[in-house]
């Protein structure tokens, strides 16, 4: 005789150790199996879009840093690129190279955090996380050397970067890119064939490619499902067309592939940095742009490949010194669209892993 069970509503969050910040899940459970889930967000909605519309263009760079605080370089670079496109100014060669080095370093730092968190969610409490943080600290030290901040840099400017690299940066960076492949192999040895990781992630939370495309999913989450969409390749910006790198993709689209995807992307980022350091030219690092800029009327949409996916800035200028409309296409928010389909039918403990493997940052979701 089958036992009759009643659905049970469980509220997870908004302050919960496994929700990556202030995220709330309203899960309806049947026993241990999730039958319905509703993500509730907005607990970190700081009104960045409204604040940015009330400030001058230059003053919005720190706000962009705080959108995605573990990938601040890429966000302020995308914003600077959008304003440069509005103004119609170009960036000096050296500054482009510095930007690429910074953004790719940031991608590695961000993926380290993502991989560490996935492992954390599976109950390997803090051990892989500590390994990842060991290398992340090294990257933060490099950033610290350049702009005196560890997390939110305010380094990008319209028409370049705020100042040149210090003398000791390039040797330190070279040392780092020589060491890092060994560390990535070390993680792979620790994790890739680990029995617990395999059991907890293989075949779990599959995201089919058709659903991913229809839900506008982007970034590593999309590529792990087998869709090779990377803005660096399909709509090259900055100087990405000068480097040789691969767009790794996987086919299963489960949590394991999303983990492998990030590991492979770190390797590709290292390749890009190595080429950029070799080719780094001498010269100016910013062009002369007044502090108060008044772009001509019009609108512009710029998208870049952020660590979490396709980051877009939509700016409307009315000719004044403040943006008339400032909109961010936040990859973390849109990647949450297929969450219901991915989680329903799995056990609650798997739901946490699936959610973690999408890798979200609340600052970017809620803005």
């Amino acid at each position, binding site marked *: 005789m089958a036992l009759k069970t009643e659905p049970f509503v469980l509220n997870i969050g908004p302050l919960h150790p496994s929700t990556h910040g202030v995220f709330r899940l309203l899960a309806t459970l049947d026993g241990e199996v999730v039958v319905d889930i509703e993500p509730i967000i*907005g607990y970190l*909605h700081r009104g960045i879009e*409204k604040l940015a519309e009330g400030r001058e263009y230059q003053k919005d760079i720190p706000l962009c840093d705080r959108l995605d605080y573990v990938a601040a370089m890429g966000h302020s670079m995308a914003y600077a690129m959008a304003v440069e496109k509005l103004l119609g100014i170009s960036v000096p060669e050296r500054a482009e190279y510095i930007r690429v080095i910074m953004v790719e370093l940031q991608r590695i730092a961000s993926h380290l955090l993502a991989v560490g968190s996935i492992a954390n969610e599976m109950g390997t409490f803090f051990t892989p996380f500590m390994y990842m943080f060991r290398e992340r600290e090294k990257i933060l030290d490099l950033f610290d050397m350049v702009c005196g901040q560890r997390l939110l840099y305010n380094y990008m400017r319209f028409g370049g970067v705020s100042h040149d690299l210090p003398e000791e940066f390039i040797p330190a960076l070279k040392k780092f890119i020589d060491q890092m492949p060994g560390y990535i192999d070390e993680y792979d040895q620790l994790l890739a064939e680990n029995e617990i990781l395999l059991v907890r992630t293989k075949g779990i939370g599959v995201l089919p490619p058709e659903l991913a495309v*229809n*839900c*506008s999913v982007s970034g590593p989450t999309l590529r792990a499902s087998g869709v090779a969409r990377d803005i660096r390749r399909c709509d090259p910006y900055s100087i990405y067309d000068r480097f040789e790198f691969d767009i790794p993709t996987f086919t299963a689209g489960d949590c394991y592939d999303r983990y492998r995807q990030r590991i492979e992307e770190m390797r590709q980022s290292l390749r890009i940095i190595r080429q950029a350091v070799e080719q780094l030219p001498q010269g100016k690092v910013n062009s002369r742009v007044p502090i108060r800029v008044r772009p001509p009327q019009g609108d512009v949409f710029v998208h870049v490949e952020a660590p979490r996916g396709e980051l*877009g800035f939509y700016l409307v200028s009315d000719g004044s010194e403040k943006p008339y*409309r400032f909109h961010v296409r936040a990859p973390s*928010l849109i990647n949450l*669209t297929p969450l219901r389909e991915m989680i329903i039918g799995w056990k609650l403990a798997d739901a946490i892993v699936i959610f973690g493997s999408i890798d979200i940052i609340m600052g970017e979701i809620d803005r």
Partner: protein
Amino acid sequence: MQTLSFGEIAGLISAKYAPEAVAPFQGSLVVGGEHLLEVASYLRDTPQLDFDYLISVTAVDYRSHFEVVYHLTSLQHSHSLVLRVRCPQNKPLVPSLVSLWRGAELQEREIFDLMGVGFAGHPNLKRIFLWDGFKGHPLRKDYSSGT
């Protein structure tokens, strides 16, 4: 794979739809609200166009009217297109595109919450970032927090 320029896409569209339904404007197409669903499904389902990926949905308050801006792209042909839908200030309502691209779901809710533009046919249209009982829509130009 055949990448079409904006002129070619606009040519295909204007051959099919009347100018009051779809009109080119600054490298984008302005679509009448009542024709949006029809035009969007044509864009998505025609093999030559194949706009299968909705990059972004956003809205702008131009004081006299709202403009909802859609950025579309085709993964296969790698061409992209911007659609604009305008609706008057006193009747902010456009059809929802969730039935075609699920990716619009959370973004339309976001616009509804912050800009106060409704989307007819959205499965779960309610506030997403702000709480129940919050007065006003902050991204509107006439919003003031009262402090």
